[in-house]
């Protein structure tokens, strides 16, 4: 088990190195944009995976934590001048607190009741944001550009810094998941997911266990939201708080393989380019073909590989394999 963990860390390092080299030969802005978005979603979906995958609490409201991170870091920058390189931590913290506040009452609900409650909470905040003047309401907030800077996390001359920022984010969330896989808390999450009654008979405190997962997941999602805000330079409730975003955050992990280290990476690498490409080639003037493709793909993968696409790479050993080895 310890050796397997070391091997995974090594594989993660190799993947990081390869991904760091990947953008160097890429010149065109469109492809780099695609790479940045994909890497962001690798991190976001891994953040969701901590709560939804490892701990088994299927949240369909992660847009709330994403939006909280985006709005908090942006507003702190605009009103107090706090540089977003620090503001993203503030955004992450607020998102974590929100995740705890949502989790504390909602974790008492089981199954579908929980999933629907998470949707509802996120939609409430979305609707409130649409009507909140201090958040810019429905028209949103622009982040003024003041020159390339790693302090303000703004770059216009090149997209490369954002590629590395997104890569660092994805790598750190991956590392967080790797670390947690080897801790008591990480083991307890999987126990809580599989059988909470058996878990508590072994002295596992179920609610605190879920709350730790929610806090970490919320924090990492909020940081991702703050980075996204800096990258796009403009946020509004529809782009950072809306319901479809919650689904898009969860999907890569679901399609790639929930509760695994590589699932979100694999899922995002497939899903994000596909949805962006189909939108730009097929989606013009509201054709709807992009949505059909996107929805069709989700149904296909969910039926064909319910354990996620990662199952394709798992050892073929029938009884000898289990989710943890994937």
């Amino acid at each position, binding site marked *: *088990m310890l050796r397997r963990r070391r091997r995974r860390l090594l594989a993660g390092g190799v993947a990081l190195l390869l991904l760091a080299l990947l953008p160097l030969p890429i010149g065109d802005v469109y492809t780099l944009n695609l790479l940045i978005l994909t890497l962001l979603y690798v991190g976001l979906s891994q953040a969701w995976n901590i709560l939804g995958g490892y701990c088994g609490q299927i949240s369909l409201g992660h847009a709330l934590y994403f939006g909280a991170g985006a709005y908090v870091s942006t507003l702190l920058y605009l009103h107090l001048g706090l540089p977003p390189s620090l503001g993203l931590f503030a955004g992450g913290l607020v998102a974590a607190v929100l995740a705890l506040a949502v989790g504390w009452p909602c974790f008492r609900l089981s199954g579908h009741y929980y999933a629907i409650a998470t949707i509802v909470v996120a939609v409430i905040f979305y609707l409130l944001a649409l009507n909140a003047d201090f958040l810019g309401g429905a028209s949103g907030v622009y982040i003024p550009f003041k020159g390339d800077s790693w302090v303000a996390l703004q770059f216009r001359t090149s997209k490369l810094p954002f590629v590395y920022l997104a890569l660092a984010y994805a790598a750190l969330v991956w590392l967080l998941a790797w670390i947690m896989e080897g801790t008591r808390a990480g083991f307890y999450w*999987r126990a809580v997911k*599989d*059988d909470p*009654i*058996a878990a508590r*008979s*072994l002295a596992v405190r179920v609610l605190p266990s879920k709350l730790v997962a929610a806090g970490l997941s919320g924090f990492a999602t909020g940081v991702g939201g703050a980075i996204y805000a800096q990258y796009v330079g403009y946020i509004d409730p529809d782009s950072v708080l809306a319901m479809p975003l919650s689904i898009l955050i969860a999907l890569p992990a679901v399609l790639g393989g929930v509760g695994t280290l590589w699932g979100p990476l694999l899922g995002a690498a497939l899903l994000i380019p596909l949805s962006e490409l189909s939108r730009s080639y097929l989606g013009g003037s509201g054709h709807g073909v992009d949505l059909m493709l996107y929805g069709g793909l989700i149904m296909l993968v969910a039926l064909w590989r319910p354990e996620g696409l990662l199952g394709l790479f798992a050892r073929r050993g029938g009884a000898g394999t289990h*989710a*943890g080895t994937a």
Partner: protein
Amino acid sequence: MPALLELREVSKSFGGVAANVAISFDVAEGEILGLIGPNGAGKTSLFNAIAGEIAPDSGDIRLAGRSLAGRGPVAAAAAGIARTFQVVRSFDSMSVLENVMIGAFARHAGLRAALHTAEAVLETCGLTARAEVAAMALTPPEKRRLEVARALATEPRVLLLDEMLTGLTPTEAQEGVRLIRAVRDRGVTVLMVEHVMEVLLPLIDRAVVLHLGRVLTIGSPAEVVADARVIEAYLGDRYHAPA
């Protein structure tokens, strides 16, 4: 022998129906105690009260002098009461080893320590060869064994077994009996609820017989079997008459 687990006047009723009425007995350190009785005697309710799953309406349950009644399953497990389930539960997405590690984490916060504890327990329970197998792939008797292993990994003082031998073939039941003896030899006190008396009687040191929610009698297996009241109580429950 000093009493490790003490029950004092434990009562519980569900919606006006009394499941347990003023039940008192002691479990001595190191003994194997059988909790028996015909259907509806209140065994399951009492078992769950000791495991912390349900809070008694009145009375006290003490482990080594510390009151645990109504403090919940986590407190019971942390204090040293481990249990198995009548309908087997396992963490199906995890390997056998990982299942047992969940138990081991109750005493050891670190990964290595939990791993070593779990490996040692698997050895005791004869599951070492199956360590890397997914829990869902085990046979039913293996799953029972896994439950015992997981419970033992919490390093309990008392192990509660819920109908662990029921539904096993005679060979499998004999293996179960050997495992329970091995557990006791490690210094763990065993309290087992059982329906099948044939296998149970040679294994236990003492039996507590429940009938209609009350303690009918307490004694050695020989005494209990000879007790006319016990025979009478079981006659109403033909299918499981004492051997």
